[in-house]
């Protein structure tokens, strides 16, 4: 097991290094002036522009820029943001990571608890009215553009009925002396609409995968045998059938892990959620190379980690894979 894990992590590290190098080169050869926004449409002296280029190392040859980046990144230093100058990239990412983890985590939780439960329910009542309606609803949600759904929810729940906040992660006027409970409730209130928006448009896949896998499992002999032994239906479903129907969902979960750090650009924009998705999108728009590299590498790491965790999950659930 240890040897397997070391080998698997080694592969992931090599892949990560290759992705980092490729990303760096692709970003630098892409057209666009990273200083365009910094100067804010105001005329500046050519010498000032040259000074800024030197400040951000943009006047160096590509190979030297790559070498500097690699040695600094190995120490965890991604330099200074161009867009948010003089803020260091590490500070920016550290500030944006918790909101991304929170929103991504909430979406994963809703997606894989409610989605799995509904998928199992559909499989148990295959062909019923409930099954058909849940399928229709899931597909309707899947077809909805997330930014549109977000705006509709804001319009109803925040502006018309004033039940939930329209945007932000916290109330800007919450007292500094507010207790942990008050802060927690405040964050949860702000979390509801973005989580619902993202979950509605993503839960369909989980439901469909789980339904299909569960139907397959319910047809197997060991389920029939469990029922013949007189086990309760709940036990048959959740202890016997579901465990065998988990593999496709586990694969899906591995693919979804990156949402923890990547966020959703549209939803973060509609709800002004201060996550990494909007930071990365703004870095792309402004060619803020240091921020772009840091966020892209974080997402790459999450993708690779998702793969490793999925493989680990397989090995835990299915002893046959341990021999491979």
């Amino acid at each position, binding site marked *: 097991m240890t040897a397997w894990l070391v080998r698997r992590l080694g592969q992931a590290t090599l892949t990560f290094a290759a992705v980092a190098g490729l990303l760096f080169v692709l970003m630098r050869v892409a057209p666009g002036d990273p200083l365009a926004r910094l100067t804010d449409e105001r005329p500046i002296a050519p*010498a000032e522009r040259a000074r800024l280029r030197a400040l951000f190392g943009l006047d160096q040859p590509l190979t030297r820029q790559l070498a500097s980046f690699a040695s600094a990144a190995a120490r965890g230093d991604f330099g200074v943001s161009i867009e948010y100058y003089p803020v260091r990239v590490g500070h920016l990412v550290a500030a944006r990571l918790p909101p991304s983890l929170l929103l991504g985590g909430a979406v994963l939780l809703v997606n894989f608890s409610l989605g799995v439960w509904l998928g199992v329910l559909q499989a148990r009542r295959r062909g019923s009215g409930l099954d058909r309606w849940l399928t229709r609803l899931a597909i309707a949600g899947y077809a909805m553009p997330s930014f549109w759904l977000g705006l509709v929810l804001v319009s109803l729940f925040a502006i018309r009925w004033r039940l939930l906040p329209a945007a932000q992660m916290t109330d800007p006027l919450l007292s500094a002396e507010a207790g942990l409970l008050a802060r927690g409730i405040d964050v949860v209130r702000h979390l509801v609409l973005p989580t619902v928006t993202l979950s509605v448009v993503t839960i369909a896949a989980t439901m469909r995968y789980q339904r299909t896998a569960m139907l397959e499992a319910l047809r197997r002999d060991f389920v029939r045998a469990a029922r013949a032994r007189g086990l309760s239906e709940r036990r048959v479903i959740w202890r016997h059938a579901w465990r065998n129907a988990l593999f496709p969902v586990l694969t899906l979960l591995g693919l979804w892990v990156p949402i923890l750090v990547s966020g959703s650009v549209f939803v973060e924009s509609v*709800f*002004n959620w201060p996550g990494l998705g909007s930071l990365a999108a703004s870095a792309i728009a402004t060619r803020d190379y240091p921020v772009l590299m840091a966020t892209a590498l974080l997402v790459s790491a999450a993708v690779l980690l998702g793969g490793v965790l999925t493989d680990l999950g397989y090995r835990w659930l299915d002893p046959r894979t341990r021999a491979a």
Partner: protein
Amino acid sequence: MARIRWAALALISIAAAPLKAQSDQRDSGTITIVIGAEPTLPIPTLSPAKQNVDVGSLLFLHLARMGKRLSTTDERDFEPELARSWSRRDSLTLAFDLDTRVHWHDGQPVTARDIVWSVNRVRDSATSPTYSLLLRDIASVTSEGPSRVVFKYRRAYAEQMYDAVWQVAPLPAHLLEHVPSASLATSSFATHPVGNGPYRYSRLEPGRLLELVANPDFFLGRPKLERVIFLVVRGAEAQLNLMLDGTADAYEAPMLARQVTPVIAKPDLKIQTMPSFSFAYLLFNQKAYGVRSKPHPILADPAVRRAITLAIDRQSLLRSTFGPYASLVDGPMGLASWIRRLTPKLPGYDRARAKTILAERGWTDRDGDGVLEKDGQALVLRLNYPGTNLPRVTLAEPVQQMLRQVGIRVDLVRLDGPIWAERRTKGEFDIDFSQTTLDPSPSGLVQSWSCAGIGGSNVASTCNPAFDRALARATATVGDAGPAWRDAIRALQDGTPAMFFYSPMAVIVTHARYRNVSFRPEAVWSDLWRWSVAPGRRIARDER
């Protein structure tokens, strides 16, 4: 069923949780302002970005500020800030007497040493090439005692006062003189600035908000609004929604008419407009696409450029796109610029005249495809514009259609912002849909429109010696410089380097509970310390 009831109760309790903070009993006001970008460096002279200038204007004062007319040439039009008075010793010397009541937020008095150190810091070309260029006519800045500052100039000109007071808001020398200039932006001062203005820096939550609190010792009186919170909100929808759901109290709205329509329907919100220093224009490249050594095959001819300006109905485009939130301009200046009043009117829309001019220059449609040709070359031009700027995106297509009607084919080139900027800088365009924000002084025109600016901000390689001569005369004029400026603008218009299009109004939405509301074009929120909440209209967040 019981589970569902509990879940419903939990949801209701979350939804009904108190929106706003607990408060103490002191009577005060609060304002929450939505801004589109994070003010990471609200220190004068360190960042020209709008969000930094807006926040910095509440933390730091200038020696004086421009009066209501925003004239940059009339010393009498300026209003005191750090300086309680000023006097002219001769045509090359101005002396300022500081108001001794002004203190830095750490309690130290503001002295002449602060002003001398601050101005001299940016006059150093190694520290700030742009400022050293802007302040090149200042020969020296010295102190006479703790409260008097003397500026000496290299030559006599009308904007001496403006140069002394506008560009630099002083910083505290006692805190910064040992900090190397290159490290100032990354010093602890940059993250916790100590100013002398009506508000003090309180806290920054990166990516979310910046809070300022009233300076109780402000020499002109304690601000009525105790707290100012700048909420960083990038998306236009989220900005509007925060106004509509009552979280925010003020914001500078996007200027397209349709984008402020939901606000008009809310009785507790007010829309106000203010002229800006921004202006948009179609810039004609007078050199070949990306090749500065060759003249442009079509646009080098001023008659063609003139025909293009006549073929576009600027007024109707503006009305349909902006409603009342923009005005036509006839030269390179925003609505707030004082020289706009002197600027001669450009000829209006005249499609027939445009066609005639093109025909006179030999452009005819021989093959009947609707596009004019001359010497085998079709009259085809590329119009570059940034895809991130909604007004320009909206206007590009109607401009294309109007030019099509006179036989000019325009290929629209919608570009990502940084790529658009890069192509503009390299001269890789035929026509560029530009927007610029200039300082209040028209002397800045030299950078973008004179022969001297080629290789720098004059990206279209415009060179009109008659304009350069007139501009030199205008900037050197002492006393009433109006006629000289009128001549300079007329000379610029004659060369038709661009189609001067519009100046957007700043559209500011505020909650109706505020009184004494006023704005400044150079820094929107700088008068905030005069605002107050009308009695009887306080809401929970105004009580602390």
